[in-house]
């Protein structure tokens, strides 16, 4: 199979916030040109895991390795500097900015010299439009259009194209298809495949098993902060994965927890807070 060294690897990573353990002993690796699909229901610890990968949180214990070397991110910009780009659910977050401006926000192309450097709108628009069209989104042809006027899928595509343009090696996609219709979602999945073909390592986070199976090479199912299953493409059926994610085990646990609580609290059911606390992040 794929025997290239992993670009990004987690080794026995634990993360806790005070007394609350959120991630338990997570080990993952993602290689160039491979899509690692991270499946998990709400509250499974996905966002904590993403934030740990993106340098927002530091692991309480365990190691993060890039190209086989241990690294400690000082913050999100450090992780970005090392080529880890995170694209969030709603993609472009500046709805009232033009495509060209939001593409280059923070790294605006300029012309002129010294203190009289001016923002090069034409070049920004050209580069932005070309980058998105290279990903197959041919409907975007005007860099002056506002990001808010794009469809959800186009915004995701713009954000992914932006990350790739600025030299991302690892692309973390946080629920990119969650808010999209069927057609838009397939657009985004095509772009994930395109990123993979270009040799990026992609971490694709989703709770939609079908979307995961369409692009994933490697799957990890996250349940209550631990990896409950780790398998390659084709090793499990869709039903098996869905069952895993919903976690018959978790349901049984929950029932036991509720019963236990009622016994010690004169028959009152616990408030939702009490049950959610261990999975909070």
């Amino acid at each position, binding site marked *: 199979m794929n025997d290239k060294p992993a670009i990004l690897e987690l080794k026995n990573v634990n993360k806790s916030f005070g007394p609350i353990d959120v991630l338990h002993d997570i080990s993952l690796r993602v290689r160039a040109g491979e899509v690692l699909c991270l499946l998990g229901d709400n509250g499974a610890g996905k966002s904590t895991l993403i934030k740990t990968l993106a340098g927002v949180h530091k692991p309480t214990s365990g190691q993060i390795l890039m190209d086989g070397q241990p690294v400690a991110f000082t913050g*999100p910009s450090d992780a970005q500097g090392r080529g880890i780009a995170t694209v969030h659910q709603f993609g472009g977050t500046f*709805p009232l900015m033009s495509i060209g401006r939001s593409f280059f926000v*923070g790294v605006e192309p300029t012309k002129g010299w010294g203190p009289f450097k001016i923002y090069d709108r034409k070049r920004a628009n050209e580069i932005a439009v070309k980058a998105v069209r*290279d990903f197959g989104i041919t409907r975007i042809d005007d860099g002056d259009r506002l990001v808010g006027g794009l469809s959800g899928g186009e915004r995701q595509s713009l954000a992914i194209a932006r990350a790739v343009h600025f030299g991302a090696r690892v692309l973390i996609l946080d629920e990119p298809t969650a808010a999209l219709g069927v057609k838009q979602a397939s657009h985004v999945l095509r772009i994930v495949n395109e990123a993979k073909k270009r040799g990026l390592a992609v971490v694709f986070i989703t709770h939609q098993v079908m979307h995961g199976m369409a692009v994933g090479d490697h799957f990890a199912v996250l349940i209550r902060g631990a990896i409950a299953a780790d398998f390659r493409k084709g090793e499990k059926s869709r039903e098996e994965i869905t069952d895993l994610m919903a976690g018959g085990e978790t349901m049984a646990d929950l029932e036991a927890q509720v019963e236990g609580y009622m016994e010690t609290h004169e028959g009152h059911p616990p408030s939702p807070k009490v049950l959610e606390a261990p999975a909070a992040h």
Partner: protein
Amino acid sequence: MAHPVASTSTPALERTHPGLALGRLARRPESGSFLGMVAVLLFFGVFGGSSFMSAAGAASWLNIASEIGIIALPIGLLMIAGELDISVGAVIPAASLTAAIVSGHYGLPDWLGITAALGLGLAVGFINGLFVTKTTIPSLIITIGTMFGTMGLTLGLTVKIAGSTGVSLVPDPLTKEILGDYLDGMFQVTILWWVVLIAGLFWLLHVSPIGNWIYALGGDKESARNVGIPTKRLTIGLFMLSGFSAAFVGVSEVMVYQSAQVLAGQSFIFNSIMCVVIGGVLLTGGFGSIVGIVFGTLTFSIVNQGIYFTSLDPNVGSIIIGALLLIAVLTNDTFRQLALSYSSKRGGQS
């Protein structure tokens, strides 16, 4: 790797289609305020008679516009960046009195009084910016706090030092000429300073890359920080700019009227915010333009002064301004929707 798009299929970015150009014009943030300005100009042109259209008539509203405009521009930048500054209302008299006390009461050189006054504006702006970036308290509340603080200090210290709530200052001829003179006997020199500020801030917001940061800051502060924009420095800088501009107006007022009063400047708080909103800046931040703010300021000033040229009750002016503000907020929303729905011909099908 083969890219699916050949360069020949990339459409020209610069279009010359006239219909589209017009449509694009209608979606700019200043379009609504331009129409509003034309409407009030026509209204008072008809009902205000020939004296409104004369040079003296124009001077009456341009003088007002220049003072509000110098404050409204940085307030507009702050609002585009998602913040508000109420403290300008206290900085104006504080700066006037600082200049008057230093140069009038103590008789020190004018430049020293002016420097002290402008420095005071920068300091209040710095404090505002520092509190806004270090805490999560909304800037509205913080600047109300600094406004009252500045007001109390101004009143207390003025009475203590000068023994009254008003201090007079007779500026040097040169100072008077630069900051407090009338051109042609009726146009305040402040108008020229306003033009300079318009040009400078137009460059900052629309030409330099920093403008992009301001829009991004108002669009989403968190994301702006994540892409590496120095959001804190930028916010503090914008507050210092508004403090400086307010102090500048305070200084030029004392040079024009040759005296400074403790209770001047309150009206500037709401008036400047109204000019900005009438000028098409969204209250939620992230959208607006310098030209729009200038149109908004002119609109406000035309109504404010034009009413005295008509036979109408002057109180009607306030009603017109109130109505304009509401219309502006409604149309701003509509224009934003238009701007968002704007797409070129193929995109329009979705």
